[in-house]
């Protein structure tokens, strides 16, 4: 009874929350836009080194966001592999010998690799880019993994950690290069912007795929654990 009442109360509160939010959106939408930002963006596009505005925002204008965001992804990856304490991340349970899956693999994996490459390449002037390509690459990895293709590079050894860090470190180096020239952090020299962004995007693709894949396969766990502090065990 109390539980039902509580549910009712929370439901009412959430409906009220939605209503207030919607009213607020309506009120804000009634005021003509203040933003000069899209215009400012298109004026500066020529200096960004890429043609696609979203990529320009992500990897040039607001690249600090993206740098930290890759940091968040790497943190999740680190925390994920710290949970799985086996020497190998292989989980025999995952291997399936489904003929359908096998057929899927034969046709899909090459297709998905091509798709990932295309998305990465397209990012400069069309929709697409490192994240989408990385996600597709990771999905390919998951598919391969479900099919039981051995993936030794996913052992939590040095190689995996290098892979996790590769994209992030290259991005970080690209960010700090400009400082040596006496410029601000993350300021690409204008004539170098395009190649730098391209390099950063390609390694990011690999790293994003690696992190997501590591998180996917690190979920199986074993029982090793720390005792709590002060626990005599």
């Amino acid at each position, binding site marked *: 009874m109390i539980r039902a009442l509580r*549910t009712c109360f929370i439901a009412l509160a959430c409906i009220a929350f939605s209503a207030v939010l919607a009213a607020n959106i309506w009120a804000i939408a009634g005021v003509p836009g203040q933003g000069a930002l899209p215009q400012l963006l298109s004026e500066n596009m020529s200096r960004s080194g890429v043609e696609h505005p979203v990529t320009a*925002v992500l990897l040039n204008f607001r690249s600090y966001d*993206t740098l930290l965001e890759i940091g968040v992804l790497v943190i999740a990856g680190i925390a994920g592999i710290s949970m799985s304490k086996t020497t190998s991340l292989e989980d025999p349970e995952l291997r399936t010998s489904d003929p359908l899956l096998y057929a899927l693999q034969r046709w899909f994996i090459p297709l998905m690799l091509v798709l990932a490459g295309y998305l990465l390449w397209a990012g400069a002037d069309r929709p697409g880019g490192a994240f989408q390509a990385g996600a597709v690459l990771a999905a390919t990895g998951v598919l391969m993994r479900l099919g039981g293709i051995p993936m030794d590079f996913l052992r939590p050894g040095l190689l995996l950690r290098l892979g996790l860090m590769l994209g992030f470190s290259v991005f970080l180096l690209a960010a700090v290069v400009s400082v040596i020239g006496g410029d601000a952090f993350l300021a690409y020299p204008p004539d170098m912007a395009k190649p730098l962004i391209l390099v950063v995007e390609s390694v990011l693709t690999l790293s994003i795929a690696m992190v*997501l894949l590591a998180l996917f396969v690190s979920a199986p766990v074993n029982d090793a654990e720390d005792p709590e502090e002060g626990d005599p065990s």
Partner: protein
Amino acid sequence: MTLSLLYAMAGAALCGIGLFGLLRLSHLLRRLLAFNIMGSGVFLIMVGLPQHQSGPDPVPQALVLTGIVVAIAATALAVVLIRRYYHQSGMTSLEGESGSREGGPL
């Protein structure tokens, strides 16, 4: 009323649904779903509201891309934690804790 505004309103509704799920559900995976749904609602508002006023705007689109990646990172980490938690305690919710009645996240 434009298309963008319609979707921003849908985002407000999704926020409410997601919030309810986060507060009321107990199964951890369901709460994770609720978090993702609420996140989608926020992203819809983030893009829909400015686009209602001044047409397609790449800045919030880029922000939402960042937000999606942060959300998948958080979700994946949460799944790893939840699985390990289940592995060690056999439980899929935070409730049933001795000495603490409330299962809410707060």
